[in-house]
């Protein structure tokens, strides 16, 4: 069809403008409505669905929203990634005698953890005890500035501009695509990964199981560059300094990832522990020789261990070891693999 050969379907330019404006306004209104009411990330209605089986929410917002009003109820906080989110707070309360909140969030990196801790401190809710769960295979996380699952809670970032950007992004196009997908999945198919979040404790449950087999030894070694390790240690130092300045204690927890993964990262562990000297002396870990680290039934998937394994890390005071001892332990395990 050519502009120079008008036919019955052509509009006048004026009508085109009217139709376009009308359709644009209608689409915008419907989009905002779908986004607000579907709220696939649980940022507008964080209380809804918390005890249901849900799609992965924005756990940063979900947990920070709760702490914003209830932080004085807790005197200890677990920080870390989605792995840390499954450490059962009841076990921490039992072992350490604390009232613990689990602030583990998806791809929770150290800069974000420092920001969250500063926010808590600024609100007069600095936890007396800070548990920091780390993984040797996740010293760096991808930078995903536009990821709606991982946008930070506005009060933690601060500023009216971010508040506005935050709200608009969850009413915008990316959110619309996700929300429509959620509706589609709800109607048509069952999503593969479901979650259960307990708002009052921050505990997360991952409601999926995959059949997994873990080798005892790795295929080879993986090493992270020195820059990443240096940045990682710098942030741990900053977190410790902040905790110290409030008289809080920092406790490191070595996430129980499969044995072969730990051995593969032996050199990283050596470098990390060397750089950590003077910042931290010891940590809680499950011995790398523990058979449970070979059993796929203790893991949801290759990256995420189950709460029982998490509980086992802190179950015994003997699991608290020096960095030198853990290095030695990893080296011995690696030698047996050769």
């Amino acid at each position, binding site marked *: 069809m*050519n502009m120079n050969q008008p036919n019955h379907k052509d509009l*006048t*330019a004026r009508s*085109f403008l009217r139709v376009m404006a009308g*359709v644009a306004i209608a689409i915008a209104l419907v989009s905002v409505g779908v986004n607000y009411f579907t709220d696939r990330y649980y940022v507008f209605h964080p209380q809804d669905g918390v005890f249901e089986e849900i799609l992965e929410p924005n756990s940063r917002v979900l947990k920070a929203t709760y702490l914003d009003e209830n932080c004085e109820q807790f005197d200890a906080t677990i920080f870390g990634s989605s792995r840390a989110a499954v450490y059962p707070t009841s076990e921490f309360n039992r072992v350490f005698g604390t009232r613990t909140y689990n602030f583990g969030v998806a791809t929770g990196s150290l800069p974000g953890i420092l920001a969250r801790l500063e926010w808590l401190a600024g609100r007069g809710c600095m936890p007396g005890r800070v548990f920091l769960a780390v993984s040797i295979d996740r010293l760096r996380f991808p930078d995903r*500035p536009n990821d709606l699952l991982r946008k930070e809670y506005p009060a933690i970032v601060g500023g009216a501009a971010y508040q506005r950007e935050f709200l608009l992004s969850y009413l915008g196009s*990316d959110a619309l695509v996700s929300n429509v997908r959620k509706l589609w999945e709800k109607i048509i198919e069952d999503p593969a990964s479901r979650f259960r979040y307990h708002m009052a404790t921050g505990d997360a449950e991952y409601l999926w199981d995959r059949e997994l087999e873990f080798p005892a030894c790795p295929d080879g070694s993986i090493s992270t*560059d020195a820059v990443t390790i240096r940045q990682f240690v710098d942030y741990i130092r900053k977190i410790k300094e902040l905790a110290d300045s409030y008289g809080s204690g920092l406790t490191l927890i070595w996430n129980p990832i499969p044995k072969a993964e730990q051995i593969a990262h032996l050199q990283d562990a050596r470098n990390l522990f060397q750089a950590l000297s003077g910042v931290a002396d010891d940590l809680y870990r499950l011995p790398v020789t523990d058979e449970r680290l070979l059993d796929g039934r203790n893991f949801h998937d290759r990256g995420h261990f189950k709460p029982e394994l998490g509980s086992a890390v802190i179950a015994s005071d003997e699991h608290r070891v020096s960095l030198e001892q853990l290095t030695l332990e990893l080296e011995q395990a690696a030698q047996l693999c050769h």
Partner: protein
Amino acid sequence: MLFNSYIFIFLFLPITIAGFFLAGQRGHHRIAISWLVACSLFFYGWWNPAYLGLILASILFNYAAGILLSGSGLSKRKAILALGVAANLGLLGYYKYANFFVDSLNNVAGAAFHLETILLPLAISFFTFQQIAYLVDAYRGETREYNFLHYCLFVTFFPQLIAGPIVHHREMLPQFARDAIYRFCHRDFIVGFTIFTLGLFKKVVLADGVSVYANPVFGAAEAGMALSMAEAWGGALAYTLQIYFDFSGYSDMAIGLGRMFGIRLPLNFHSPLKAVSIIEFWHRWHMTLSRFLRDYLYIPLGGNRKGPARRYINLFITMLLGGLWHGAGWTFVVWGAAHGAALALNHGWHAVRRSLGHDLESSTRLGRLLSVTLTFVFVTVTFVVFRAETFESALQIIQAMFGGNGFATGEYAPNQLASWSDGFRFIAALLLIAWLAPNTQQIMRDFDPAFDTYRGSLGDRPAERPRFVITTAWACVVALLFVYAIGSLTRVSEFLYFQF
């Protein structure tokens, strides 16, 4: 102020349009132009009001020099032109290259000269080039006595002020004298709005969407990390697509905005990633810069008039300086040199083929495919140098792209820089768009969207459909794209070419 911002789209633009046509339709053309100049200066000053004085001084100086040039004898004209060009280049040199010069001198001579960091005024590379062209043409007697307000608008017209297209006075100034532009035209508005929407979509959905796969790779290389082959290719391809959709999207927006005022701007992109050779690439990429470099640098250097050897040297020098125009850094110089060398080689190859009696216009499908692939790989690799902060990081990425860190795909993303399964799907989709889809001016070609600056056919094959038609269906498509793009504005990032 960014084109892709709420304040521009919902406040600045409607107010500017309303003011212009309110005055224009009542016959107050001078007020309408003054309004547009004032709004354009406001748009420019939004970024940093301190530099408003600089652009105003530049306009006054060049306008006065233009008048002197058109009214003086030959000997005086030469001196005025030399002074005018030197002053423009001096301004550009001071703001853009002084720090670079001092740093390079310190590195080479081991000296320790110190110069405070000079903040690069926005758009200086663009408005300086436009005005140099004006002076040269005034010297050649190719300009008329222009109205000062019109001249101000020629330099400051906000759609093209910040990042081009680099407009020519011959294209712009006569349009300001047409009565028709002062009357609001629904047809021009919807054509302009559609082009603007296509550009906005390219920028905020495609370019910004793919940038999350480019930035971490370049950042990691800068930090000294060893990249896998997949990560390096992912980052390089993502950046090539980012800069293409970013800059061509910006150009579309500029052309669309101009058209809303009834003003046509020159075409700046014509699907450059479809180019079968590096010669063709430069006929399709940033066409108004290529035109400027050809008319005001390559041809004055002698062009192809002094034999093949001088031609290749002239090409190389032109591209070398073109590279330096993009940024004050050795990586830009090397990027320009690589393209200069490739152009010379490409012309040499054509000469050899012509001497063998080959028809350069005909080729097989396979031949075209190989040529497009080779050109694309070259462009992608050289864009790594263009984007990288240092040679070390550029080499780090290029080395990894060609197996320097192994060919293994098992641990294809050891640095966890991005979610590559999504990333490669997105990159593949964008490549298909860049290679197979019609471009904006092909979609809009029945409405003469821009001055045709392409030296070839803009194409008229069935594959180059869909074509824009004023129908309900198109009204819905444009509305959908517009709302989707507006809904993506929270992913704000500056246009890449602002920095040049």
